[in-house]
């Protein structure tokens, strides 16, 4: 197991109290696995990603543990995490457009970044150039300022930078959301290529776009309001989802071939609950078409089939 996260609880500290952004999150990722993390905005997917690399205020660590390659990740301690960042755990942030220092040429910025981790730029330069070629960037970009690159180019540059030291775990946060379809495809395929070439061991791809995950992910974890809803291999999530939220989420996606005059798709009525005082029991209860009395209790996240975890009383009851 490359990454294991157990009972992770992270709150946001606000003036009104604790916002329970991550509540008892347990999952694991195998070596070479690309795990997709999907959900609506505000469901805690980005919080989960960032918690594994930079758990800083206003985020507050409450409980749980994470380990990477059998070694414990000191995620609650921002100083102890320093040796892990960039070398073992790396991230491609959501806005790669603004992830690079605008006042430095990209090559110089890379050198400074590496120096901060005591790695010589010269020794890594040949590999850097090889990887730039892989993502179809010319070596000239190292001599350019970030402003001279287009959005897709910046995204690819940051991708190369983030994975330069072959981290064990890469967290890719909404990296395709701001791109148009053709660049989206190219960037997603490069992610898979990076995994296949063992630049990174395993990956968490955070996105709200399930159809992208279907193309690249090995497994998908669906989150709802700070809780895990369902985790299963990609094919299972798409073709045989069990959690009502996953079902609704997938049925609301427009596909090529569906027209509003012929088949009208439905969104999910209602809004996600406020996490300041989350509702008791199943958090999807208010929006769920199948909710019944039992849903007032909190559903456990259990394995109903090998590799398929669901947190829903309906499924648990059928299974028991």
């Amino acid at each position, binding site marked *: 197991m490359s990454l294991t996260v157990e009972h992770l609880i992270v709150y946001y500290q606000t003036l009104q109290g604790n916002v329970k952004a991550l509540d008892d999150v347990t999952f694991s990722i195998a070596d070479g696995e690309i795990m997709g993390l999907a959900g609506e905005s505000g469901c805690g997917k980005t919080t989960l990603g960032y918690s594994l690399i930079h758990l800083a205020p206003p985020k507050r660590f409450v409980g749980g543990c994470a380990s990477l390659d059998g070694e414990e990740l000191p995620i609650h301690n921002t100083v102890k995490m320093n040796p892990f960042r960039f070398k073992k755990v790396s991230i491609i942030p959501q806005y790669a457009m603004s992830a690079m220092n605008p006042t430095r040429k990209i090559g110089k910025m890379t050198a400074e970044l590496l120096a901060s981790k005591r790695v010589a730029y010269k020794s890594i330069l040949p590999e850097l150039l090889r990887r730039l070629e892989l993502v179809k960037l010319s070596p000239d970009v190292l001599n350019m300022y970030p402003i001279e690159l287009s959005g897709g180019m910046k995204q690819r540059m940051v991708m190369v930078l983030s994975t330069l030291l072959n981290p064990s775990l890469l967290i890719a946060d909404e990296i395709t959301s701001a791109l148009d379809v053709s660049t989206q495809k190219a960037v997603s395929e490069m992610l898979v290529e990076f995994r296949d070439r063992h630049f990174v061991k395993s990956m968490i791809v955070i996105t709200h776009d399930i159809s992208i995950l279907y193309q690249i992910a090995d497994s998908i974890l669906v989150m709802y309001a700070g809780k895990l809803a369902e985790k299963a291999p990609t094919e299972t999530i798409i073709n045989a989802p069990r959690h009502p939220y996953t079902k609704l989420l997938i049925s609301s996606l427009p596909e090529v071939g569906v*027209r509003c005059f012929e088949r009208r798709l439905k969104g999910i009525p209602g809004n996600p609950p406020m996490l300041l005082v989350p509702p008791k029991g199943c958090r999807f209860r208010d929006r769920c078409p199948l909710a019944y009395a039992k849903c007032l209790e909190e559903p456990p996240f259990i394995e109903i089939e090998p590799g398929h975890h669901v947190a829903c009383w309906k499924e648990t009851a059928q299974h028991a």
Partner: protein
Amino acid sequence: MLRIENLSKVYQVGTFGSKKLHAVNHVTFDVPKGEVVSLIGESGSGKSTIGRMILGLIQRTAGTICVDGVDVSTLIKNSPKEYYRKVQGVFQDPFSSYNPIFKADRVFSCLRDEFFPGMSGSEWRERLIASVQAVGMSPDCCLDHYPHQLSGGQLQRLLIARALLLDIEYLVADEVISMLDASTRIDVLNLLADLKSRGLSILFITHDLSLGYYISTKSVILYKGYAVEQGSTEKIYTNPLHPYTKMLMACVPRLDKKWDELDTQLAASQSASLGGCAYYGRCPVGDKSLGRDRFKPPVVEVEPDHLVSCYRLMN
């Protein structure tokens, strides 16, 4: 009918405007009454530029934009208010369309001050509630709130409600759903479809072909400011003929099919040369012998209501 003919936009870029950037080149299409037309292209294809020119936010370089037979610049010059009563826009980012210091209703009260100064309070209130309900929201839960208290989907629907208050006939919807969640996205799309059935004409600007197919009756595919393919949505989607349209179709992430193992050609950053086909540099079937250096690919009507601009389809 909104008619766009031979529309071009040239930006002066570089030091002292020494270089020219052709953002839109001789685009011709029309938005018939009560129809949704999708304008589809990658970033930099000029789709938003066209929307902005229709709204009069930027000047056009050449060509005409006519609303019901009258040129837009005359309309805006004579009485801008009358024009904006008819034509309104909704933009990509609902969060930055509001002033965070004021309540979200301020977009409505500003509108009232400008367009309905003589209207009585109760009548205004009635209209406001009717248009908020028309976008599928209850007035209690969205009026009298600050923008940060509402979700992106709600804010976006309020902006559409604002446009509806004016009894508009044309709506320019510029990437209205790209910032929204999958679950609220479809609600906004359905709302646009409802408005269409009530007689509103919509220019739907997007880069996502599946959304365009879901909602529109006509589509225009843009590449580097050229309309490479246009016509009935049905025909374009079932039978894409331009290599660029084919490439876009292949790139849409779908749930029923994995991506083909096709190498995606990325857009070249330099602007296209003005002679010949703009897509030549990326075209997988491009052929020099077809005379790309000499002239622009002509627009060919391959079947009724399906125009393609590609050398390979000549004769």
